[in-house]
């Protein structure tokens, strides 16, 4: 390679590496703000002030969903298997909402520690399979390779 070309390539590589480092460091510093939601563990650690509009994400705890008989109101617990957050929501839930499903709720913490959601979104995991395969896996009693949750 001719010297002037080598020099040019060097400058380009230098700029690219420098910029990547700068951007990498800023993203690392901002990672709390880039995260879409707080986990129940973060809520339990007191990272959230009541009244502040945030999102909380986790799995819907088995057996925790309680629908109101009169109004369109639902209460359930979301968990990351370390800590729980009780969520209250009045509105239409996404089709995918069910126990054991990952969800993201938007709203604010009330003083008593429940989370009042104004919107609930369903998270989809990275597992795709047919009804038959799922049934066969369930019949075998375990679902190999199924990750535990939405928290990676």
């Amino acid at each position, binding site marked *: 390679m001719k010297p002037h070309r080598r020099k040019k390539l060097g400058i380009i590589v230098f700029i690219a590496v420098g910029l990547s480092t700068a951007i990498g460091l800023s993203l690392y510093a901002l990672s709390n703000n880039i995260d*879409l939601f707080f986990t129940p563990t973060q809520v339990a650690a007191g990272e959230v002030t009541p009244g502040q509009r945030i999102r909380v994400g986790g799995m819907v705890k088995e057996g925790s969903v309680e629908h109101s008989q009169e109004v369109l109101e639902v209460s359930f617990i979301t968990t990351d298997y370390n800590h729980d957050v009780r969520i209250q929501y009045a509105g239409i839930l996404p*089709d995918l909402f069910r126990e054991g499903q990952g969800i993201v709720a938007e709203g604010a913490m009330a003083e008593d520690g429940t989370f009042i959601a104004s919107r609930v979104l369903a998270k*989809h995991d990275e597992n795709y*399979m*047919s009804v038959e395969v799922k049934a066969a896996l369930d019949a075998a009693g375990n679902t190999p390779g199924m990750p535990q949750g939405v928290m990676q």
Partner: protein
Amino acid sequence: MWLWFSKLGSPRWFYELSNKWLPWLYVAMMVLMSVGLLWALLFVPEDYQQGQTIRIMYVHVPVASISLACFPLMAVAGTITLVWKMKLADMVAKSVAPIGAWFTGLALASGAIWGDQIWGTWWAWDARLTSLLIQFFLFIGVIALRSAIESQDAAAKACAILAIVGAINVPIIKYSVEWWNTLHQPASDFSMDPVAPNPPEVWVPLLIMISAVYVFFVIALILRTRNEILQRERRSQWVIDLVSREKSV
């Protein structure tokens, strides 16, 4: 090897060689696209969670993966333009930008349609969606920058620099779902086991669709680049000869 490299940089050589490739690419695309689409739309079984909505994946994943390949390609072409001043590299860089913008737009649109069904919202400001939106704007920016600068050489240099800088976004898009918590799910692990999550009946047609859309992308890129070659070399003898030959036929 260096001789091959400099030959590849010659627009005329590329024009003539790509002429021989194109028919094969057309055949490959027709076969892959029809097999892939029919398989994905008619024969892939309903998903246990999403039902029929899973079919959107067979469009979304191919266009998204190609949109992610376009930017590094533009950055590599830009580096070659800056360092070796190879004419063909800039023609490729110019041609890939609108294709990349389209694929990124399609990935965002197909993802929004899927998200509306599954998540309950068509948009969320999570790291994956936002970084892909930034890539869409970067492509638009590269196209605008090129048309804003009149001198061809200056435009090539400016776009090359923007492409190299913008390529830093690509690993951020790719790993956003692992580095941060997002609404978008992470990439799946394919399983060879037919009775497991992500079995072959799900991913084989996906692989076919990805190859089909890749071949389509290569064809689109070659056609645009050939156009660019004729446009820029219109005063050279070989293009004049070619045009007069075409006319006489």
